[in-house]
């Protein structure tokens, strides 16, 4: 049997091609300079090897011109590479507005995935091809890193905060998902798969029809938690409760008791659930107890999905929350 010896990873996302172009350019550049230096060393070593007769060389031949040349040329080249890499990075860091949202929580030693429509997965992530997918990441314990080599994307999942990455898969298949940040005993076993599917297949999978009962959406699950945890006793749909109403809060600017204001993004909502005393809405008493330890990161995400679904005029599609944030911030509506 001839063993497998791949030398180059599969290209399965829209960013894989552009990233690889820079890679090949740098290989060509590196090969050129390595061969130049090695070639000169070998040529000089042969031509000027130690012999009885000694060649005299003029002192400091062309020194200044050479020094300037080999300082300026590498600098110019490196700025070209810098610019190229920076442009790629900005593309990689900026999810398109129409991205499908999914959530991944790292936990020693597995990935827990959630889809807004309610399907949950462990160590597998189903995604459609031809559509950008934004993965929001966090961790239950230590730092993990979400790495899909075939898509050329990687992002650390940091406990206590949300990070994200995005990709657009280009061909159906199963791709390695690795944890790339050392996280303890079974770090190397914290691996999974991203399964890219045709959009129709993905929709069928997402609605869970192959399993019978349709899954409960994240917002719906969040609503149940909201009731079960007793949140609803203080946070009512109008401002009559002991806590502020949460209708239209997500993405809006919130006035705080210290006079400043904050945009109620998912990071703020998460903090308000787990460390409510940190930044209290103006006009309310700091009486909310912490839910740290009572809810897991996956449940926090469900609560946030529910809060984001609380709109007074019909329901807002969740994909638009990101855009709404900036608009809401300028409007200055308080929660």
């Amino acid at each position, binding site marked *: 049997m001839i063993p497998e010896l791949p030398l180059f990873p599969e290209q399965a996302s829209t960013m894989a091609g552009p*990233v690889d172009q820079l890679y090949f350019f740098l290989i060509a550049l590196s090969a050129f300079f390595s061969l130049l230096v090695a070639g000169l060393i070998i040529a000089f070593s042969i031509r*000027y090897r130690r012999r009885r007769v000694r060649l005299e060389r003029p002192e400091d031949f062309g020194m200044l011109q*050479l020094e300037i040349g080999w300082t300026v040329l590498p600098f110019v080249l*490196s700025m070209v590479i810098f610019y190229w890499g920076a442009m790629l990075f900005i593309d990689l860091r900026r999810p398109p507005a129409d991205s499908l949202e999914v959530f991944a929580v790292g936990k020693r030693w597995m990935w827990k995935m959630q889809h807004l429509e309610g399907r949950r997965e462990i160590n597998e992530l189903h995604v459609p091809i031809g559509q950008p997918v934004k993965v929001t990441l966090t961790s239950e314990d230590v730092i993990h890193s979400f790495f899909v080599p075939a898509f050329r994307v990687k992002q650390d999942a940091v406990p206590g905060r949300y990070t994200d990455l995005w990709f657009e898969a280009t061909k159906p298949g199963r791709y390695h998902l690795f944890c790339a940040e050392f996280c303890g005993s079974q770090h190397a076993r914290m691996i999974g798969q991203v399964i890219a599917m045709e959009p129709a297949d993905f929709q069928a999978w997402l609605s869970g029809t192959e399993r019978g009962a349709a899954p409960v959406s994240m917002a719906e699950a969040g609503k149940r938690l909201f009731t079960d945890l007793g949140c609803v006793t203080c946070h009512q749909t109008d401002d009559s409760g002991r806590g502020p109403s949460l209708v239209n809060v997500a993405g809006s600017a919130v006035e705080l008791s210290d006079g400043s204001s904050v945009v109620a993004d998912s990071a703020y909502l998460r903090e308000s659930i787990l460390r409510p005393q940190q930044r209290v809405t103006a006009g309310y008493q700091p009486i909310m107890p912490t839910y740290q330890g009572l809810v897991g990161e996956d449940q926090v995400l469900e609560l946030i999905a529910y809060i984001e679904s609380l709109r007074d005029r019909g329901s807002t599609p969740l994909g638009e929350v990101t855009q709404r944030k900036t608009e809401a911030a300028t409007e200055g509506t308080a929660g």
Partner: protein
Amino acid sequence: MTPDPSSRTAVNYLNVDYGVRSWLLTKDHKRIGFLYLVSITVMFAIGGLAALAIRLDLLTPAGDLMGDDTYNKMFTMHGVAMVFFFLVPSIPAVLGNFLIPLMIGARDLAFPRLNLASWYIFILGGGITLYAVLTGGVDTGWTFYTPYSTEGSNTNVTSAALGVFVSGFSSILTGLNFLVTIHRMRAPGLRWLRLPLFVWAQYATSIIFILGTPVIAITVLLVAVERSLDIGIFDPALGGDPILFQHLFWFYSHPAVYIMILPAMGVVSEIIPCFTRNKIFGYKFIAVSSLAIALLGFLVWGHHMFVSGQSVNASLIFSFLSFAVAIPSAVKVFNWTATLYKGSIGFEAPMLYALGFIGLFTIGGLTGLFLASLGLDVHVHDTYFVVAHFHYIMVGGAVMGYLGGLHFWWPKISGKLYPEWLARVSAVIIFLGFNLTFFPQFVLGYLGMPRRYHVYPPEFQVLNVFSTAGASILGFGYLLPIVYFAWSMRYGKVASANPWNAAGLEWATPSPPPPDNFAETPVVEDDPYGYTRIDPGEELQVA
């Protein structure tokens, strides 16, 4: 050339006194350098055995040799021993200690007692770390990332961190000693621009020791504090920030890379003129580039954090500065290459190491550009590409430089010659073994194999087998110098004062030098590397 008979009988630093006491209480910089040589060789052996275990385990995708936790402890031991207890002290503490006073015409370092204290602190730190390893080990990796190190790991993190903390003071005091010595104790006429480039490199390194090491010391201490007292600094569950740790850690640990490579560059800058019989090309540019690297090196730490959640703007700035720091390194490579032009080039073992250094450092530096490129780093970050890159710098660069320097100055250190042909063969074995070990790892990394993986998908196996085969050759190559250096101490041919016909004040003393180095303080009247004035027909003394 016949050996100088006086060096056999004359009092030198080795035969002036015998017995354990005379070594453990010595204040002679040469003896202290020798103490470091022995200590870091032990650490190198420990780190090397761990590397061997890692490579053997990676022969199979299932990692059949050891369990998960054992593997994690092995790579941690490898990293901690090699970085903190071998590479950081290697050239400065061994060759720097031995050579700086000799090169500047001084009788010792400015603070001989402090110098001995530095060694004891180093031994204490190393001892604490070895204790941590022997009583169960540490599994955080040498990077001690939080919150894993403070909350997640149930291994001996606290004692290992204390070991690193303690040994840091050894670096700080050594750096201080070197800076004061270079400023205050240069021989008459030895102006700054007449200093050997090795001394310039040590000067730049000392700046990093003094400015950087306190930061790592306080950082690992904070880890120990958070771990033992539950004071929230880095752990978000306690209200801390895990990314803060990464900033503090890399603020030292990136400059630490330059602690490892700058002295090696200094060694190469001494060897190349000697074996080309040429004045070094671009002396001022090489000297200034060392300082530029030391200073710019403090401003690039964030390039380890492009996927950590650091802001895009910060990443852009760190990427830009990382490209900037590549320039002085490139300048050095071109200057060394130009020094070969119209030389009279000999290929004794030190020169083979120096040429190997240039080749491997060039590849290591160029692959650094891949990592500094933001969009590309996202893919290769924390993969074997990074592992390959920094081994090209630290092993291909720093260790090749260290071995080249040991061979070059061995006649001065020991008073004996090492076996030249065996040394040349070893240098070639090490060069080939190194490339076979680490080149496949670039490919593995781009394929997506993450670092610190004990088990891996089967399609990565062939490249891992190449790497392990290379590591076996490399390990054998490293054994040879250890054996023949030890052998030559007793059985080697007696070295003359200047077997390489080299310029530099250290060669003006007998081999080995007397306890006080110079009977009379030398007066320097020329620029360094006056090789054009040495008769080319003269033979070198080799065994």
